[in-house]
């Protein structure tokens, strides 16, 4: 299966179809934008539950605006959805700063774990777990230091007594292996 990019003309006609109250067009909009909006919101808010709620808000706001013909340049649908998501994310973060939520002190409470993953997310996580398991333990450490700790190759090299070039090569190869495995196993499933 080849992934096709969203063609601008498709998105333009999608906006137009929604304005004309075509119900299948609304489903198409949700299918196309739900994932990017969620990924953007979860990256910005670092809170998957909040991101899920905000995604619904963003898509509803976009649908309302399109139904009312508020998008003047229909070819800019993607930018419009992105802008709406960014504004709602910023509002959410501002509100959070003004009235910080009380966090549970007990780390064992279920709130500590991300809940409500979609089937697709669950499947991806499970494949990624298997891929991580198959990596060399040194590669796992390099990935942890890079992707979680945010360390640069030079710092990791000192820590692990490797050269920065070796760290970069190992990291690059390990990430490629994981991505390939996800691609391969995702393709096999219906």
């Amino acid at each position, binding site marked *: 299966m080849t992934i096709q990019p969203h063609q601008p003309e498709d998105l333009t006609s999608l906006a137009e179809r929604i304005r004309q109250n075509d119900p299948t067009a609304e489903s198409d909009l949700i299918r196309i934008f739900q994932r990017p909006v969620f990924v953007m919101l979860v*990256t910005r808010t670092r809170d998957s539950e909040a991101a899920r709620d905000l995604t619904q808000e963003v898509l509803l706001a976009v649908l309302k605006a399109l139904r009312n013909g508020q998008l003047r340049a229909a070819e800019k649908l*993607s930018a419009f959805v992105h802008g709406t998501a960014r504004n709602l994310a910023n509002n959410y973060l501002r509100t959070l700063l003004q009235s910080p939520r009380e966090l549970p002190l007990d780390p064992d409470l279920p709130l500590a774990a991300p809940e409500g993953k979609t089937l697709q997310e669950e499947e991806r*996580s499970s494949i990624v777990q298997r891929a991580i398991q198959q990596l060399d333990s040194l590669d796992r450490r390099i990935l942890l230091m890079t992707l979680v700790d945010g360390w640069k190759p030079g710092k990791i090299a000192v820590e692990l007594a490797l050269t920065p070039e*070796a760290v970069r090569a190992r990291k*690059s*190869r390990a990430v490629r292996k994981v991505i*390939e495995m996800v691609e391969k196993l995702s393709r096999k499933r219906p």
Partner: protein
Amino acid sequence: MDCLQINQEEMIERYLLGQLQESEQEALERHYFECPHCLKELETRRALREELARREVEIRAEATRAPGVRKWLWVPALAGATAAIALAVWLWPRPTSTVPTSPIAQTPATVPDNSPLVRLAHVEPPAYTPLTLRGSTNAANRRFHEAMAHYKEGDYAAVIPGLRQALRLDPTLPEANFYMGACYLLTSNEEEAIKSLNKTVSLGETPYLEDARFYLAKAYLRSHDIAAAQRELEKVVGLEGDRESEARQLLQQLATLSKTSP
């Protein structure tokens, strides 16, 4: 912003770590809103980051359980490999007096198929997993994936024209440069293989760097440039990747070979 720039500047990784400037973040988001490939890669990397964070304690514990062990794991392996090589060299048929005994001095026409150097220069086609990477948004990538359909069928000569077209569209496409080198090598065009593989190496930190150096060493071996092959193999060892032990073995075999050759 395009897929290539995102890949080369590791923008997805920096995005997930919150290390992008506001303008870069905006541009990346606008891109993946329209690019299912980059969105998919972002989701995979996010899942990878989540899983690593979830297993953080376990991964760090692995390192403390076996301090210093890794460094010495290769010693028994190398000893075993050396013994095997010595045995293999001893068992290999000796060249007759009509065939030059120094493999380095031999010309391709006079090198018998079972000579040690020919065996060391033997290459297996590098693995290729067809992905949907970047092909959806970039003409060069699309051409690359089309060309690689022949690769899966083992028709390496047929891959080359398609890869050439892909490289005309984007000369810096690392996968096209690498497989171009591999295909030249598999069709016995060492001179062109060396050019393409050197080009891949010159692109710097790509997922193909280690393999490119390894196959470059093989290409030099086939061209009877043992010193250049050894240099490349030492660089492969220095990368400490998947090819490390294979490169060590080859270096060892070359050293043995040069000792046994008059």
